């Protein structure tokens, strides 16, 4: 059974933030990752602050600038089936649909999906690893089949989210509320690489809540997609994935591109060089191949995860050609 904790269900965001002031608190939104982590003793909680009932964190709204504001409590199932998202931001709908299982998508929230802890089997297992304050990354010498090939630095987790890469590709910003006020930052700078701080995956302070995500209005000729490879047909994290957002000019050439990899780095992995290479060009087999090759440049596979290099190359090429 899960270790004991206290539970509060504040009825306003303000109250919730107040509750978070105490140490040892954890936020419960959908609870899918939280309960798993508590049961597995990945971390403990003295108090669980349930924000599931806060209506101010729900809903998908058109913003005045034509963009979209998505409440942090929006479920993955809602993201996957929302007509506006399906039409204007397909990468996000595809990312949400490719995550987990129907039941988990009914329960898991956007905020939770962005803030979930890594799935590294040493981190989730009872290994006192670096990320848990120990002095060793067990994946380095052990089984690292599912670890990162980019951005590892003493710790080699991958970020497990499928919505995060899509949102980064779409240029999302996240809104954060805390005791010291609120702030809005690009989602890209929300994530913390292990080289900067090995014990956390994002910039949220203990008394802060991610309240919503906003997306800019889609450009007239914008196309986006999320493509993911997993070991089995459903209910599985990405071995590798790619989110694309491309803006096409009238002549069919790429005017702006975002290429973001998933499943291969401790955070959504933007490949600026590939984006640059695509800009100004039409997507052909050659340019797609070239961009894919750029995406795997500098990959540092470990003993058992070299296959991810191939996956990335194939996925990027395939995804680019599919968006032509």
């Amino acid at each position, binding site marked *: 059974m899960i270790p004991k904790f206290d539970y509060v269900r504040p009825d306003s965001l303000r109250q919730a933030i107040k509750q978070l002031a105490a140490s040892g608190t954890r936020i419960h939104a959908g609870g899918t990752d939280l309960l798993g982590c508590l049961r597995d003793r990945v971390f403990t909680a003295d108090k669980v602050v349930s924000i599931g009932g806060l209506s101010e964190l729900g809903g998908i709204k058109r913003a005045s600038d034509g963009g979209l504001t998505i409440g942090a409590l929006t479920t993955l199932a809602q993201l996957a089936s929302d007509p506006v998202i399906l039409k204007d931001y397909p990468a996000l709908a595809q990312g949400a649909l490719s995550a987990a299982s129907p039941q988990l998508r009914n329960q898991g929230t956007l905020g939770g999906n962005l803030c979930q802890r890594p799935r590294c089997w040493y981190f989730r297992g009872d290994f006192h690893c670096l990320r848990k304050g120990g002095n060793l990354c067990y994946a380095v010498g052990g089984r690292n089949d599912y670890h990162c090939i980019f951005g590892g630095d003493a710790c080699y987790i991958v970020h497990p989210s499928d919505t995060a890469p899509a949102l980064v590709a779409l240029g999302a910003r996240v809104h954060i509320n805390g005791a010291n006020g609120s702030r809005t930052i690009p989602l890209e700078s929300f994530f913390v690489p292990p080289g900067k701080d090995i014990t956390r995956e994002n910039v949220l302070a203990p008394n802060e809540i991610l309240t919503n995500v906003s997306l800019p209005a889609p450009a007239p000729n914008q196309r986006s997609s999320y493509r993911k490879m997993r070991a089995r047909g459903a209910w599985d994290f990405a071995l590798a994935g790619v989110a694309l957002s491309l803006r096409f000019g009238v002549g069919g050439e790429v005017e702006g591109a975002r290429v973001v990899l998933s499943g291969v780095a401790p955070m959504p992995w933007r490949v600026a060089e590939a984006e640059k290479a695509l800009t100004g060009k039409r997507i052909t087999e050659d340019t797609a191949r070239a961009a894919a090759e750029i995406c795997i440049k500098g990959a540092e596979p470990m003993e058992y995860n*070299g296959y991810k290099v191939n*996956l990335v190359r194939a996925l990027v090429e395939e995804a680019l050609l599919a968006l032509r």
Partner: protein
Amino acid sequence: MVGKHKIIGKPERRVDAWGKVTGKAKYAEDYTVGHQLWGKVLRSKYPHAKILSIDTSKASELLGVEAVLTAREIPGSNVFGIVVKNQQILADERVRFLGDGVALVAAKSKEIADHALALIDVQYELLPVVSDPEEALRPGAPLIHGDTNEFVHHKVRKGDVAKGFAEADFTIERKFKTQFVEHAYIEPEAVLAEPAEQGGVKITGSVQNLFSSRRSVAEALGISLNRVQIIQSTLGGSFGGKDEVMTSMCCRAALLAGRTGKPVKMVNTREESMLESYKRHPYVLYYKWGAKKDGTITAMEIRVVADGGAYASMSPFVTWRSVVQATGPYYCENVKTDVYAAYTNNNYTGAMRGFGSPQVDFAIESMMDELAEAVGVTPLEIRMKNGFEGGAVTATGQKLAHTVSLKEVLSKAAQELGFEEKWRRYRDAKAVAKRRGVGLACSYRGVSLGAEGVDAAQTTVSVQTDGSVIVSSGVTDMGQGAQTQMAQITAEVLGISVDRIQFLNTNTSGVADSGPTVASRGTVMGGLAAKNAAEKVRATLLEVGSELTGTPVDALDLADNYLVNERTNERLASFGELTAACFNKGRPMIGLGWHKAPRTSWHEEEGKGDAYFTFVYGANAAEVEVDTETGRVNVIDFVSVHDVGKAINRAMVTGQMCGGVAMGLGYGLLEEFEIEAGIPKQLNFDEYLIPTSMDVPRIKTVIVENEDPAGPFGAKSVGEPTNELAAPAIVNAIYNATGKRVYEIPANLERVFLGHKLTRHDKRGSEQKNAFDAVMVESCKVRGGSE
């Protein structure tokens, strides 16, 4: 006979269907009684260590704890084992794998029990770990039991392989590897043990093989068999997996119930289940074949090493099936097969659906495709050339006297998929990124236990005065539908509808020891015993019917719930009237059915014998699409053909065929229970991936029926043969698509892409790899120190 049956071969619903769709079916964990205690096991901290001391004093003092037991407190025998008695209920001096139990706690709640476990202080002295079976057989390897780790060496000898290789135009020599596989029954293990009124114990639980578990419980408590009653709860899947792991759980719960005088419930979490339970054997297989240019196989030399893990379990039997079937259903005059099993510090390995055949079938069927290529014929042609026909003599010297339908099932599978045409087309196709391929695999499989052991079973048919019927059997139902099959057989013989039959879950005190329900023997053994029992009752009923009506017995029949005059088709009495009359006349309406399997033989030293009393034949054909840039394999079409003798229930046979393919697909493509230095890497379904609804292709099933006199109404086996061919069919299809052969399963992304495991890329990690084992041990120590 065909067409005459009223119940056999008809789509009857399962006798347990209502309970299962309503949630009323009671599985082990659903049993709860007043004042029950919770039992928990403290398991080993290391894969291999000497136990220096166990201090349970703090745990015993804990409020709510009612008993703490170690090996010392076991009144009777602490050891069990079906073949070799070397497994302990609780380790006394040594732990040999991480799943070994060291102490038990019974407490008022699960949490108190868990807390008490943490207070038990065990001091260990670490011993060197061996986790590779071939390493374990080398001199100087750490010893797990006695003075050698080799605990099985089965052989088959036929002709002279040296001569056979001399006659060959060429040889093919290959090495194959298979992996540990978790049974992954969705219901975790659970029992409820209650002290019995007259002493002894009553256990209700998710037990597959009740009689062997009962024997061990009786020995552990030091009491006679009749004082231990084990009742099987509805079983939430087993696939061979709820045998020894349940025996130890039954013994532990019984010991705690005995000590406390209270009911004790034990339930494994998924993690505990995966940690402690046994797995499918990983094999290393060395195959060397000599052949002529025309494809005739002149010699087969085969050496197999199985990882037995920490205990013998069913390894001697599993590997025996491997040695008998290692050459496949193919003619060869010169055979030398050696199968070894070695102890290691891994999870022990035992029975799992297929029972030693999936491993060898992967190797045989891969070899057969290589032979086809070397000779320049298609995979179908090479199998048709070498495959057994009626009267064939197997590698063990057994002459096949039944209908040998290998070529029938092969051609049906090939035809259904359009194999020949596709195979040629895909082979010659342009090398694009996404390529299709087709693959074929076939096998023959011995039915039931064979010369592995005593093979007999009991079923009881008890007709009630109102014409309803109770059937019980020593053969158990794990979801495969044994109860429904036996009910159908009983109904057929008694001329009644299946809905009159109530099937009792197996109770060791109600039926005779019928051996284990393994080796797909349920239908044949339980079914023939049911037929035998029902026929006894039928004879009595007809006699009474004759007395009542004055019609001679040979003119009477039981049909459609009536006693009828067969000649006039006149209904003489309803079945209920007949049974009431039978009761009033004081005649027995209970039939004890018994079936003993026909004689089989085995000469261990000569490596020869009539291994099984009959065989079944099956063929699978797979079509895949391989993304050669990623290694991703999609199975897009699948055909499964099996000769089942006679399908008692077509829906259930189809269900078995689809289920076998799903599990076989997981075996071929997805599943691998990884153990690193004796430490398992996956302990729940987030990391141990089994196929979902998105992974299993549409499966075309073809049932072939060549009735076999050895089975009830001609029926044979279906549960296991369906599980052994998907992996080789898929691997052969991958080859057809890519021209690269996978020699190690599962055929996951990296193996398909490169054909082998990737090796270390560059500087990173290399220096630390060597230190890794030491680090793992260190981290064990840290935890040891924290308690």
